[in-house]
């Protein structure tokens, strides 16, 4: 099966390829996105408004940061992290409890990120020491984590009037304040991954772990680093989530999962590992976040949203599979 370690396939991913490989995907994504915007605007000219911009960028924030985490896991050959919902709710709970204790926003953010990294380390420990596949490990830890969280709390909310509460409602340069950190993180991660030693190691392990090991890269250390980094991004996404979600329960993050995986795959970050460009996440997440608003303008119920998003993912994965098949004859 294609999810199994692709030892004999794919040459070590060249950083050059990782830098340039995504632009075709980018143009296609941009075209589809613009098409959606144009179609909706033609049908309802009032779609093209500041209100729509606010709605789209607001949705992009949490999804975008989670997609960075998912992208790191996928690119390093960890396939998918199915435990993001449990991780984000855990970190959100930490953020809520810290802000209830009257901590400043900086402490809340650091606390949530640490909680996320701790969860990532927990996943990595099971994956590395038991040598089990991340998909099953994160499936199980998500099961266990969500159930445990339900035992701990039923409903939580950041205190009204706290710093994080105001952060969630603030705007900056005409867009929601939570949008800007997401934009900055995607740009920085996309810039650093192909240009730093750590980033290139991650790509190398994801592309061909046997070759990476032969070059002296520690697979265990890379695995820990990638899952902890990915967990840290989930922790930060939790801050944005807790700041804006209002009252949430342990099941509140479940519906995000698919959009994030779709965003990562549409961005050309292959689930097979070693391939992709993080900057493309801005286009794919932007496109996916425009769909709900667009459907509302077309007068379709919110249930149809799942139909579109679901089939878009099926098509995206089919294209990804087609590309991978052509790349490895």
């Amino acid at each position, binding site marked *: *099966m*294609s*999810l*199994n*370690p692709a030892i004999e396939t794919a040459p070590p991913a060249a950083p050059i390829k990782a830098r340039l490989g995504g632009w075709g995907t980018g143009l296609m994504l941009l075209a589809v996105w613009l098409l959606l915007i144009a179609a909706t605007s033609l049908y309802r000219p009032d779609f093209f408004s500041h209100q729509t911009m606010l709605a789209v960028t607001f949705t992009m924030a949490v999804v975008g940061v989670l997609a960075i985490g998912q992208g790191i896991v996928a690119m390093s050959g960890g*396939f*998918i992290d199915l435990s993001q919902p449990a991780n984000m709710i855990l970190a959100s709970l930490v953020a809520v409890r810290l802000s209830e204790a009257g901590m400043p926003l900086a402490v809340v953010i650091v606390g949530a990120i640490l909680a996320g990294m701790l969860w990532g380390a927990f996943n990595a420990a*099971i*994956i590395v020491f*038991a*040598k*089990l*596949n*991340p*998909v*099953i*490990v994160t*499936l*199980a*830890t998500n*099961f*266990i984590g*969500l*159930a*445990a969280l*339900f*035992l701990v709390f039923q409903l939580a909310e950041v205190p009204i009037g706290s710093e994080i509460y105001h952060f969630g409602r603030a705007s900056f340069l005409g867009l929601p304040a939570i949008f800007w950190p997401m934009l900055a993180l995607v740009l920085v991660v996309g810039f650093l991954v192909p240009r730093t030693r750590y980033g290139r190691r991650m790509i190398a392990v994801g592309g061909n*772990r046997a070759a990476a*090991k032969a070059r002296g890269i520690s*697979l265990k250390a890379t695995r820990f680093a990638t899952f902890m980094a990915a967990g840290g991004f989930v922790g930060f996404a939790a801050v944005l989530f807790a700041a804006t979600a209002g009252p949430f329960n342990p099941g509140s993050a479940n519906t995000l999962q*698919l959009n994030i*995986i*779709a965003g990562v*795959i549409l961005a050309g970050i292959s*689930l*097979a590992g070693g391939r992709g460009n993080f900057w493309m996440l801005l286009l794919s997440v932007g496109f996916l976040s425009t769909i709900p608003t667009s459907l509302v303008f077309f007068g379709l*119920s919110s*249930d*149809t*949203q*799942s*139909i*579109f*998003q*679901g*089939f*878009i*993912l*099926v*098509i*995206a*994965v*089919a*294209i*990804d*599979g*087609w590309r*991978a*098949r052509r790349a490895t004859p």
Partner: protein
Amino acid sequence: MTDVTAAPARGPGLSEDWRAALTGSVASITLTFIVVVAIGWFWVGPKFLSFGNISIIGTFVIVPLIVGAFAGFALLSGVVDLSIGSMVGFSSALFALLLSLGWDPASAGAVTLLACLCFGGINAIAIVGFGAEPIAATLGMLVALRGIAWVLLGSQGSIFAFNLDMFNLVSMTVGGLPLFFLLAIALTLVAALVVTKTRVGRHIRAVGGDDKAAARAGISVKKVRVAALLLSAFGAGLGGIVYAAQLGSAARATGFGLEFQVYAALMIGGYSILRGGVGNPIGGALGLLAVAGVSNILDLKAISPYFVNIIVGLLLLAAVLLDRIRGGDAYE
């Protein structure tokens, strides 16, 4: 991969067969199952094994058993179909909708199953035709079908479609146990026979175990996987129809999250969602029964149902670890 149903008495193969049967995945799930039954018996008391209680567990696992028996074929052939949970929801919604429009159950059932096969066909085109990653592609189908089911259910969020004849049929008991539970067990046994004793079963396992070797041996990998994905969709469709008949209605929650419940139990029972060729319908059914037993025990002891998920998660990790120690792929 050997199993308890493997022919025992045949010359020198005998001892290996028995050794494999004692150390294989069916042996460990049988042990787990016995432990669950023993805990239930000692902790809850003889009431746990009463006909009344077994009927409650049995009624509860009918649909998972049917869905699991068919989905197992997809797992065996090396493709996982995550869309089964929503497929159950979609099937029950469409079936209930057709009944509420005055269709007779037989033609409503036929159309529903046909629709499920069409969506299974889309899965097959994406996965087999284009080489899409099965987990991600069927995750997309999961969400799409959930949307379609919810649109079918309308703003009410549920459709009432009670049919007395059908309800009587699915609630019928034979010898103190629900008829459909016994039928689901029979289906499991037939599936086990197909998997272990027939040429088709050998082909499916060969494709799942090593598709390149299977292709060299002249087996059409594509045909087997398309058939397996269609079977999986068919089983889920059947499950949805049985749900609608049992409940007399379809609702948004029908089938929600069922895929994770079923696959966790199947993996505890010896299947793998990442590698084909391993697992056996009997092991899968025992996995489903063990999980149902655990949740029944917690229910009778008035313990929070969330502990079921914690126990299932831990059992799942233990089962995959055992599978790896037995020779499954180690992940580095």
